[in-house]
């Protein structure tokens, strides 16, 4: 049975017809069509930058389409702003959570639709009651008085869903909802989605993870570079089928990697204790070591001390106790400058905040750690000719586009920004390369490139320490996998023997080693 037949008898709640959206000369959506049916999950599949979010932002009234029309429950509507969308029963959970951090859960949920007594005075009592009611009804438990900045990412996502439900959403858009979740949390989320559809809600699920789509969705719209490719019935296809439609060619899922014997231990951490910004212990007596010629993957859910661990190693955060050693030398509580000079390179998790000076051009960014050294500077004066030559070399070698070293880093795509960072860090010829979330937000091609670079390092007998929230990435790239939970390593396994279920359990604190 094809898509047409299956959907014939279903009630359409949303129809997006021939939606086109242009940003200047850039076409983000090109005549895309989408139908959503009552009580069904409709997935939206495409690579990063394919235009999924744009399409949903149009449906939610954040952008207005250049052309095309939208029908809700058969009626043509003009969604000029989110208020209109909300009135039509559309709710959206954004990929980057739209939560006000210093506010409480309840305040975030009611924002914009606040229950009030006289004179616009907030009625927090009613707010708390309302929030509790919905969370009970859909099994979405959160503490309404907790501040967002104090709760986990999974909880924050529940708040986002509650926000939409509080506004009486019948159609719920979930934008990449699993990107930050543990496998267990993903299972829970899928259960929540099923509960919601049972209650008659319609879901639009944006994802580039095929497995989830297969598990959760009824139908799937595939778009590529803004263009409408196909709509399929999920039960009639498989991962490979979806994937080839998504990228337009056959793709292999595993990363090509030779077997390699690891060398001597080069980097070690003993009994490390680090506090976070709120002065709470985030890394708790952690032990870890990395050998030459291996990639150690650190798996774990966001917020279990990875960031603090990284910052402690690279000198950005104070170490309370414990030791960090490289090549036998103690570098505990060194400055970033000293750490770099000990041949440690670092691909930071937030490339725009840490990795690049966005208002510098590419060439200036390539010398961030070496600007004062010969040949880039002589007697304190920068040698722009030499810098240019060097930058051009890196641009060629790492295929950064556009190939202009005078281009501002701000004007590069995410993938190319990451290439500049990797080029810079790898060119420092480090003994240890730390890569934190190196592929976050990149498209398939760029991800392949990053993985290749990491493996190249390992093959050159260098140590690589990979930190990622994407379990697939950890499993595909690493030689050994350490799992971190609440600031402790709860287990280390060989990548060959690793199983998703077991790792997932450990990531959630269920480790038994």
């Amino acid at each position, binding site marked *: 049975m094809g898509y047409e037949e299956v959907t014939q008898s279903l009630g359409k709640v949303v129809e997006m017809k021939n939606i086109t959206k242009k*940003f*200047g000369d*850039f076409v*983000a959506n090109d005549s895309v069509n989408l139908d959503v049916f009552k009580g069904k999950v409709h997935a939206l599949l495409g690579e990063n930058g394919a235009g999924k979010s*744009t399409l949903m932002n149009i449906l*939610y009234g*954040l*952008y207005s389409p250049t052309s095309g029309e939208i029908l809700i429950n058969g009626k043509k509507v003009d969604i000029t*702003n*989110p*208020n209109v*969308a*909300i009135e039509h029963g559309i709710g*959206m959970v*954004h990929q980057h959570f*739209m*939560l*006000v*951090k*210093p*506010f409480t859960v309840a*305040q975030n949920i009611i*924002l*914009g*639709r*606040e229950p*009030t007594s006289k*004179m*616009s*005075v*907030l009625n927090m009592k009613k707010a708390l009651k309302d929030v509790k009611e919905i969370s009970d009804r859909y099994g979405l438990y959160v503490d309404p008085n907790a501040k967002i900045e104090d709760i986990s990412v999974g909880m924050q996502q529940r708040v986002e869903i509650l*926000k939409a439900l509080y506004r009486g959403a019948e159609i719920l858009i979930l934008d990449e909802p699993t990107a930050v979740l543990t496998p267990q949390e993903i299972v829970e989320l899928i259960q929540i989605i099923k509960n919601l559809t049972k209650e008659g809600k319609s879901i639009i699920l944006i994802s580039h993870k095929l497995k989830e789509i297969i598990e959760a969705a009824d139908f799937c719209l595939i778009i590529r570079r803004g263009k409408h490719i196909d709509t399929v019935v999920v039960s009639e296809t498989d991962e490979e089928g979806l994937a080839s439609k998504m990228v337009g060619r056959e793709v292999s899922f595993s990363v090509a990697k030779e077997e390699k014997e690891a060398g001597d231990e080069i980097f070690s951490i003993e009994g490390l204790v680090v506090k976070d910004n709120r002065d709470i212990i985030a890394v708790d007596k952690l032990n870890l070591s990395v050998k030459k010629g291996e990639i150690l993957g650190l798996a774990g859910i966001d917020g279990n001390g990875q960031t603090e661990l990284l910052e402690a190693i690279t000198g950005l955060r104070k170490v309370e106790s414990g030791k960090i050693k490289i090549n036998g030398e103690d570098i505990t509580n060194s400055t970033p400058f000293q750490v770099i000079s000990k041949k440690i390179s670092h691909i930071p998790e937030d490339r725009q905040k840490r990795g690049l000076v966005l208002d510098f051009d590419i060439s200036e960014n390539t010398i961030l750690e070496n600007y004062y050294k010969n040949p880039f500077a002589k007697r304190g004066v920068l040698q722009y000719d030499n810098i240019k030559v060097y930058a051009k070399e890196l641009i060629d070698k790492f295929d950064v586009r556009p190939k202009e070293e005078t281009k501002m880093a701000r004007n590069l795509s995410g993938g190319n920004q990451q290439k500049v960072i990797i080029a810079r860090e790898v060119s420092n010829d480090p003994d240890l390369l730390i890569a934190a979330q190196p592929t976050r937000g990149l498209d398939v091609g760029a991800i392949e490139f990053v993985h290749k670079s990491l493996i190249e390092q390992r093959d050159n007998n260098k140590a690589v320490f990979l930190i990622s929230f994407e379990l697939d990435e950890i499993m595909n790239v690493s030689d050994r996998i350490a799992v971190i939970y609440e600031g402790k390593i709860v287990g280390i396994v060989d990548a060959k023997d690793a199983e998703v279920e077991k790792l997932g359990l450990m990531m959630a604190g269920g480790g038994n080693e």
Partner: protein
Amino acid sequence: MIETILNNLALILGTTLMYSTPLIYTSLGGVLSENSGVINIGLEGMMVIGAFIGAAIGYYVGNPWIAFIGAGIAGGLFGLLHAFACVTFGANQVVSGIAINFLGAGIALFLSRMFFEGATMTKSIPLDNKMPRPLNGVFPDGSFLNIIFDNQYATVYLAFFMVLLIWFFMYKTKYGLRLRSVGEHPTAADTLGINVMRIRYFAVIMSGVFAGFGGAAMSLAIVSNFRPTLISGHGFIALAAMIFGKWKPQGALLACLLFGGAQGLAVFLGQFDFEISSQLISMLPYVITIVVLIGFVGKSAAPSADGIPYEKESKY
């Protein structure tokens, strides 16, 4: 002996209230604007125009409340100008604020010359046409409370009321919740159907209104006329107090009181023939502020989106 100490204490407290009042209004203005995400460094200019308009209307019309409100409106117009630049056109907020400072002073003096026969100083307002003094003569002569409150103008009490009002508005009403959300995470607010632009316009205009009140609290209560040097740096001090008070109305109030208290102390110490120079005593309020900041306050956290223009359809 005890009586002397009490009397002196009362004097210092009285001076504290007097000094703090214009600062309180103005820093409340800063609180509103910056919590909505718009830096307002133009408070000084808004104060100047408020002080002038207050004095001018007070002189010509004779009703202090009309003058006070007029000053607020004048400040609000400059707030509108600032909002126009910063909210509608995504201007650099610091640059626009500096422009407002030049414009405020320039226009106030220009108008003064037009309406006061070429003078940059307005004519004095009789006591009866100044702000009322609600507690004048209420307490027995020479009593502790009398020394503090006898000659405090309505503006003083109103300032405290305004702090309460703004606090209530910001933390207990839905518009306050929205205003803060806009300053913290405008995109989130926008996705919930909150009109970011409108709230920022409102906040910035109100910040001008309050700075205008602050200026008028100077020209209509502390003195009874305007002169070019009447507001000399008060707007910047109020700005500092707002930052010092961690962008909260109650914090700003305390910071203003601290500053006013230090001035009261300087005036108190100034009456004695010390060996130390009176210049050093005059430095005191500023030194105390820095010392307090270093010792007790530490890093202060601005609203996350403070200073960042909000553009709806940012480039892809």
